[in-house]
């Protein structure tokens, strides 16, 4: 029998970005809040000190900060005709673990979706006709508009101190920024990062070929900054150890640098780490959650009663939590009925490798989100008539890192090891650039998440099963974007150019992105969504999934974190301003 704890106003499952933002907002509003986190406590000076965090083997190769498959994993298959097998080593995507979640190990790319992304089905049908979309494509308009979300994007960027250059402030275009972006109420909190030589060369080539390059919005800070919570961040040192690492210099935005020190000052907030929530408990009607059950590090079971349950785990595990708790109808791919697990999507990435003649690029001068980007081929920024696909992505020259173990560019035909490989590495390292595209991945009827009928976790609960493959639309888009990028790369006068458009089938054996989206989709219609426009469960009104990427109806051509953060603030306001006054369905 689990032991029952005194009730709380709010229980938060997972203390990453959304958990800490909601924790802060609701503790500040006076509620008694507990956050239950599966992984360990993590702190800058003790867990990511600059004296050893730049250990590529430990963190980037052996994945020290990430979830271990023996803690929790999922099974995978490309389609319903295949057997699903457990992922025994995370490679394609890397779920985080511990306090800070993915906010610890991200690169810092801080993108807003396009205004047209929020009404993607309407936009595409209006422009290209209803028949232009494949019959099995299940994309849908978001239940919120860009205009509604803009103030919340602004809040999250101010929380992070994001560095960048606005291209559109209240409808007025500004040179040097992204000419395609939605309107911003204000300039970025801090100016753009300084660009290294590689990105500067790319920008030159992009301009020469008629494009509009701009600095990538980055939450690795160009200068010291104090956020609205009073927390101070330092200036980025361009060490190039962002993704897969925590930041030891207080210069990458994360829950650790942007929220937690202020949150921990509230006496009405508690964090319970190394404790895994096993399910959300419902009352006898199934319409109201009574709290959660969890298992602590010693295997003890506890019941934490609460008036509000916030599901703030990683996107994939939000879906599993609802499936395991029986909240919402599970999606059935055969009938197309049900919603939980529906519209799982990913990201369609590709790259163009370039070796220049005689440049010295010093690519180790790097930071997670710096780089020069063009947005000419994202979303519906360009005319898709006759292209045979919809969607798009940003592309450019990021320079997130150039670490010695995993960055070994060599010309084609070089042996994989030995003296010649060493020689080629030494000759090529400073002349090689990796350009990339970061494309949308729309949703399809046959891409979904459900509970695996065979495999179970260490606690005896069914693993989640992922059924996913890239569709022709995405592969055509990737081929087109990669070609456009190669066109720009040719303007750099390279000695070698190698294009790698995304090819099917989707495989788990090479890193792509940790942008797993959908499964607890927000929407205007309970028949095609798990959550209403306030990220509130249609079925159990005191359960919210406040903005994790599992709420995305499909994935667009940008990194998810800015939208995740904006939706977290959006949900926090809905709870504070509306739900607390009158608990019940908000839509």
């Amino acid at each position, binding site marked *: 029998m689990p032991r029952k704890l005194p009730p709380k106003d709010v229980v938060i499952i997972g203390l990453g970005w959304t958990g800490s933002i909601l924790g802060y907002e609701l503790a500040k509003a006076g509620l008694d809040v507990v956050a239950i986190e599966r992984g360990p406590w993590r702190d800058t*000076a003790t867990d990511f*000190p*600059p004296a050893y965090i730049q250990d590529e083997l430990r963190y980037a190769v052996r994945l020290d900060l990430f979830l271990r498959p023996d803690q929790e994993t999922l099974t995978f298959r490309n389609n319903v005709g295949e057997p699903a097998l457990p992922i025994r080593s995370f490679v394609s995507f890397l779920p985080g673990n511990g306090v800070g979640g993915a906010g610890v190990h991200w690169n810092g790319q801080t993108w807003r979706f396009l205004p047209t992304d929020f009404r993607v089905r309407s936009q595409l049908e209006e422009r290209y006709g209803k028949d232009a979309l494949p019959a099995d494509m299940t994309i849908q308009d978001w239940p919120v508009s860009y205009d509604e979300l803009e103030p919340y994007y602004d809040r999250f960027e101010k929380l992070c101190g994001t560095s960048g250059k606005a291209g559109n402030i209240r409808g007025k275009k500004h040179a040097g920024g992204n000419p395609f972006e939605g309107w911003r109420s204000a300039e970025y909190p801090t100016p753009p990062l300084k660009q290294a030589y590689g990105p500067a060369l790319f920008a030159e080539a992009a301009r020469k070929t008629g494009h509009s390059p701009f600095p990538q919005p980055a939450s690795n800070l160009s200068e010291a900054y*104090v956020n609205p*919570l009073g*927390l*101070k961040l*330092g200036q980025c040192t361009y*060490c190039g150890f962002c993704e897969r690492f925590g930041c030891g210099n207080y210069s990458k935005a994360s829950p650790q640098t942007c929220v937690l020190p202020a949150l*921990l000052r509230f006496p009405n907030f508690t964090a319970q780490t190394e404790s895994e929530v096993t399910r959300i408990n419902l009352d006898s009607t199934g319409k109201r959650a009574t709290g959660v059950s969890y298992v602590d590090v010693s295997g003890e079971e506890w019941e934490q009663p609460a008036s509000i349950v916030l599901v703030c785990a990683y996107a994939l595990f939000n879906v599993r939590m609802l499936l395991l708790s029986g909240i919402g109808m599970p999606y059935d791919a055969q009938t197309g009925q049900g919603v939980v697990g529906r519209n799982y999507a990913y990201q369609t990435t590709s790259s163009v490798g370039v070796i220049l003649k005689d440049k010295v690029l010093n690519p180790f001068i790097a930071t997670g989100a710096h780089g020069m980007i063009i947005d000419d081929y994202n979303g519906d920024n360009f005319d898709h008539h006759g292209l045979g696909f919809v969607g798009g992505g940003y592309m450019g020259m990021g320079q997130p890192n150039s670490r010695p173990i995993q960055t070994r560019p060599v010309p084609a035909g070089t042996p994989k090891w030995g003296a010649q490989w060493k020689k080629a590495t030494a000759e090529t390292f400073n002349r090689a650039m990796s350009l990339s595209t970061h494309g949308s991945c729309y949703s399809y009827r046959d891409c979904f998440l459900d509970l695996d009928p065979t495999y179970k976790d260490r606690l005896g609960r069914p693993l989640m099963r992922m059924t996913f493959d890239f569709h022709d639309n995405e592969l055509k888009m990737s081929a087109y974007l990669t070609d456009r990028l190669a066109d720009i790369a040719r303007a750099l006068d390279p000695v070698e150019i190698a294009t790698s458009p995304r090819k099917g089938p989707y495989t788990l054996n090479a890193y792509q992105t940790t942008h797993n989206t959908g499964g607890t989709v927000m929407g205007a219609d309970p028949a095609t969504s798990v959550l209403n426009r306030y990220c509130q469960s249609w079925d159990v009104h005191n359960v919210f999934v406040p903005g994790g990427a599992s709420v995305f109806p499909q994935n667009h051509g940008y990194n998810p974190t800015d939208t995740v953060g904006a939706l977290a603030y959006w949900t926090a306001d809905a709870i504070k301003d509306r739900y607390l006054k009158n608990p019940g369905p908000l839509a």
Partner: protein
Amino acid sequence: MRLAFSALVGLAALTDAAIAQDLQSFDAIERGRYLAVLADCAPCHTAPGGQPFAGGLVLQTPFGNLATPNITPDRETGIGNWTDDEFVAALHDGRGRAGTRLYPAMPYPAYTKMTRDDVLDLRAYLATVTPVRNQVIANQLPFPLNIRLAMLFWNWLNFAPGGYEPNPQKSAEWNRGAYIVEGAAHCGTCHTPKTVLGGDKNDAPFSGATLQGWFAPSITANPRSGIGNWSKDDLVQYLKTGANDWTLAFGPMAEAVSHSTSKMIDGDIAAIAAYLKDSGAALATAEPAALAPDDKAMRAGAAIYKDSCAACHRDSGDGEANLFPRLSGSALVQSGDPTTLLRVVLQGSRAVSTSSRPTAPAMPAFDWRLDDAQVAAVLTYIRNNWGNAAPPISVGPVASERASLAMSP
């Protein structure tokens, strides 16, 4: 240092020495609550995880351990049975009930400067806190120091009872600052060097002292060793928020800021700053010469600094305000006693979190990465670069600090 006479249960001698003030007066209680902030009573009189003012925190003194007594109004184990006069005698004269002697870990040599009215207001407040039954064995000293009568002799040597005498040459603000610093706030308890017997060296007040494994730096107006380069506003910011353009409060001062100075009213903080900026400057010391940059330790230190320190403290040694302490021009960096420097490099340290500066950044530990010679070299370098000048650090003190930290986790 012992207020409560925990053993004397039953001698409930309400000797009714005329309750001079109305203990129920809200004004008195409120003044007393603030005086408890000024005097920073709670941190010492609260054990880790314990009830406020219920005592039990073990203080490590050079002479042995003392546990702080219970000063809640519990009648048996606290001070609920004390008369006002007994309370005043404890704070003013270091006398416990029935005339026993307190140990000066209780800063009665400072509290003696407080007015009787202030002490009684403090008493009024302490009478309102939740009584907690908590028996504390305060005296854990070795023989013969455990004989409280020994303090008679100590007092004769080291203790000058008597209230604060205002200096008519100075402003009212200065005098208020002096009253707080020398009295309730008992700054000298940490910052004034001690004699062999643990008494204040009264010829060098506030010029820095080592206790409990930390060097409490000079807070005189001396520009090199003290806070002479800080503006009055720098000092105000430091006391109010725990951080300023120079440094952040850490170690025991983090506790003082957290519990006491950050909760003081602005006028009192300004008064403290006015007084400290205008006292003790006379102790000018000879300007030491900086080591030559081509000195062997300096060259090694420069390389280690670049590798391990510059990412945060910068090549310029300027750090980042409110985040990474400035090393250039820092008095602590150039202090004669390197205890704190050694400790911070070896063990790391977290800055205070206050409501206005909640970040609480921390310095990581380097004990696992730098050996004694490397620690000595990098400290020698930061003490003699960017215009800093201070004697080099040798390997010996690093080794002994490492050993001492290993003994007291």
